[in-house]
């Protein structure tokens, strides 16, 4: 892991199964993930895609590891990035139950310069996007509501 790789830990009052579903089901992601619907069969080697609300392709990759409900890892390409980079970045969700709380560790590794954005008044950049997405996911699972501020 390089120094600029991004790690975000969040504790959520939920179950590993509910959290796994929220991460892997497009009906859920659409609510908290800036309107993105995720689609995949979620087997090793399966394609993963995130679609915008207008069905345009936003992000795509391939599943590296899928061990429900504890570990999910896939590569991450931005469809808009041209030319496509040779080495994609890699997203990993680690789900650890701790009593009735679940610890979620998000790692976004093999990032390139430019993936991390200095300016913190934006949702662009992995360091800005993920805390908003995961805060929204936590609110959704714990309260049934998402945060008005975290939207496209």
């Amino acid at each position: 892991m390089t120094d600029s790789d991004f790690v975000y830990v969040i504790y959520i009052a939920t179950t590993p199964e509910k959290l796994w579903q929220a991460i892997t089901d497009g009906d859920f992601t659409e609510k908290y993930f800036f309107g993105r619907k995720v689609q995949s069969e979620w087997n090793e080697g399966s394609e993963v895609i995130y679609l915008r609300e207008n069905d345009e392709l936003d992000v795509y990759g391939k599943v590296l590891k899928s061990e429900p409900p504890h570990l999910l890892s896939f590569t991450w390409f931005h469809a808009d990035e041209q030319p496509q980079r040779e080495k994609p970045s890699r997203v990993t969700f680690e789900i650890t139950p701790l009593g009735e709380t679940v610890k979620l560790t998000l790692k976004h590794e093999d990032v390139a310069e430019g993936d991390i954005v200095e300016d913190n008044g934006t949702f662009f950049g992995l360091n800005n996007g993920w805390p908003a997405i995961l805060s929204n996911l936590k609110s959704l699972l714990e309260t049934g509501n998402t945060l008005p501020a975290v939207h496209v």
Partner: protein
Amino acid sequence: MTNSTFIYVTYIATTPEKLWEALTNSDFTEKYFFGTKIESDWRVGSKVTYSREGKVTDYGEILKYEPPKLLSFTWTYEGDKTEREEPTRVTFELKPMGETVKLTLKHENLVTTDIVEEDDTFEGFNNGWPAILSNLKTLLETNETLPPISL
């Protein structure tokens, strides 16, 4: 000696005033901040302490106090034997975004041993803060803290 910063951002459905109170009021901190009570008279230059069962666990000096937007103080944990040129520094920035507040926690002037690689512990600022701030968010949004965790 390396000098690094730990940053943690979370978004909370609350108001800046409520979040400010939760950060600075001991009845609140006792609930979400590993059972510690915060105390200070909240003037720049004043001492701030976190205590558990009457014993100080962490302390510092107020650097900035601008409710409900900015709070900054030095941070030393009781019993710290690490050689440091200067104490670490904690800053809370509260940014209202409609009915959400963006809370940015920065913990600066960290040395290598302040960050702990192992993740099955609350030791290390990188392990402690996410647990504290997750608990704070749950408390403000649901009026209850997270179910107790033992590692």
